[in-house]
């Protein structure tokens, strides 16, 4: 039996799935047109304090930029940025989109923190069987709407706090037409260096500009004698900066108090953006 195939049949494809996907991307581009800079904060490894630094950077920038700063928490399964910035729901829905929550220093925040029940994991409707097959698409769809359907308004800077992993930056970067670049966060250890190196390489090969490296938990300051002592062996920040020929934007010591103040980072990041 022979019959015509897709391109042989000239009739319109009413579902137009390709057009629907294109429309989704157009909505993202339209919403982000009023955002001057979109910066990814990434790391290959979990537990390096990436969300903590994202919050610190947002605060540092909010003090330097009059046009407004936003943070999108792309770590959908383990959201933490909203709490660090003191942002709370509920989110107000308007005809045009969803108002982001507003945290300290007027920072606009969007996160699954506002959507999930207290202590509940990220869960999806429908049958749980074989959920892993569609989970990636569900998460990308959620991030797409966090970009396109949140009323970000005019912003000087939107930080996107990525979950650990090497491929998130490239996947999300492909959705953002005006992506400025990515900041990599590491701790000093060799394990972190190897992991973050993979992420930075994936980002660069995906066409994302690397803005620099920030080394977190670079030792701690002894309260008694006021000397700085190492927390980890290794020199990952400088090594990654050298490997990828970008600046080491700062070394941030461990802060037992969780103090978000990192004013010098703000200057370094602004320099990297210049």
């Amino acid at each position, binding site marked *: 039996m022979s019959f015509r195939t897709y391109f042989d049949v000239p009739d319109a494809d009413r579902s137009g*799935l390709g057009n629907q996907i294109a429309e989704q991307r157009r909505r993202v581009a339209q919403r982000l047109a009023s955002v001057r800079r979109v910066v990814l904060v990434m790391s290959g490894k979990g537990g390096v304090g990436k969300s903590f630094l994202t919050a610190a950077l947002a605060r540092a920038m909010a003090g330097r930029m009059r046009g407004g700063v936003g943070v999108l928490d792309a770590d959908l399964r383990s959201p933490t940025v909203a709490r660090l910035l003191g942002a709370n729901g509920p989110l107000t829905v308007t005809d045009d989109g969803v108002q982001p929550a507003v945290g300290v220093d007027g920072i606009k925040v969007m996160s699954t923190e506002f959507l999930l029940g207290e202590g509940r994991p990220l869960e999806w409707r429908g049958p749980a069987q074989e959920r892993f097959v569609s989970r990636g698409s569900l998460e990308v769809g959620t991030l*797409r709407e966090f970009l396109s359907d949140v009323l970000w308004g005019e912003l000087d800077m939107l930080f996107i706090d990525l979950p650990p992993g090497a491929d998130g930056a490239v996947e999300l970067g492909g959705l953002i037409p005006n992506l400025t670049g990515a900041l990599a966060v590491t701790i000093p250890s060799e394990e972190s260096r190897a992991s973050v190196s993979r992420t930075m390489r994936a980002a660069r090969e995906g066409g994302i500009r690397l803005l620099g490296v920030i080394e977190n938990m670079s030792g701690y300051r002894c309260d008694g004698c006021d000397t700085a002592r190492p927390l980890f062996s290794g020199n990952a920040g400088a090594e990654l900066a050298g490997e990828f020929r970008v600046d080491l934007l700062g070394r941030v010591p461990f802060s037992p108090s969780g103090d978000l103040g990192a004013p010098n980072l703000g200057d370094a990041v602004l320099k990297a953006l210049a």
Partner: protein
Amino acid sequence: MKFLCITCDEAMVFSERQEPGDGTFAAGFTCPKCGHAIALLANPMETQLVGALGVKIGGRELDQAPMEFVRSKMLGQDGAFAEEPPSTDSGQRTADSALAAKPRWSPEATARLDRVPNFVRGMVKKIYTEYAAERRIAEITPEVMDRARSELGLEGM
């Protein structure tokens, strides 16, 4: 996606979409020449795969509501979203005329809407209301909701 009636060598025409609420999806297609009708039946996993892309088989009928994907796919907490109260018209339309243009909700439909999780209720109400208003349906009943759910592909709403 296209369907071809091999006998007539004609592209079949999309006729209707059904989401019976059991996680599956059905789409009907008819040959415009011989009238032969077929149904595409997708199992829950296939339905979920297509739904996870945020697209509608057969095309989109209404404009996308804010955070429609998130609200219809994610299991979120009640009270996560607060619907903005309708703005008061300052133009020529009076409050009465604005209300007159909106379809009524029958008590049965209201009771059914109340069973929709709070996380999505506001959005679902808006979608049904727009569906009825566009078709000049004066009253939203459970039957209208069933029809809208089928036509618009509102799984579980």
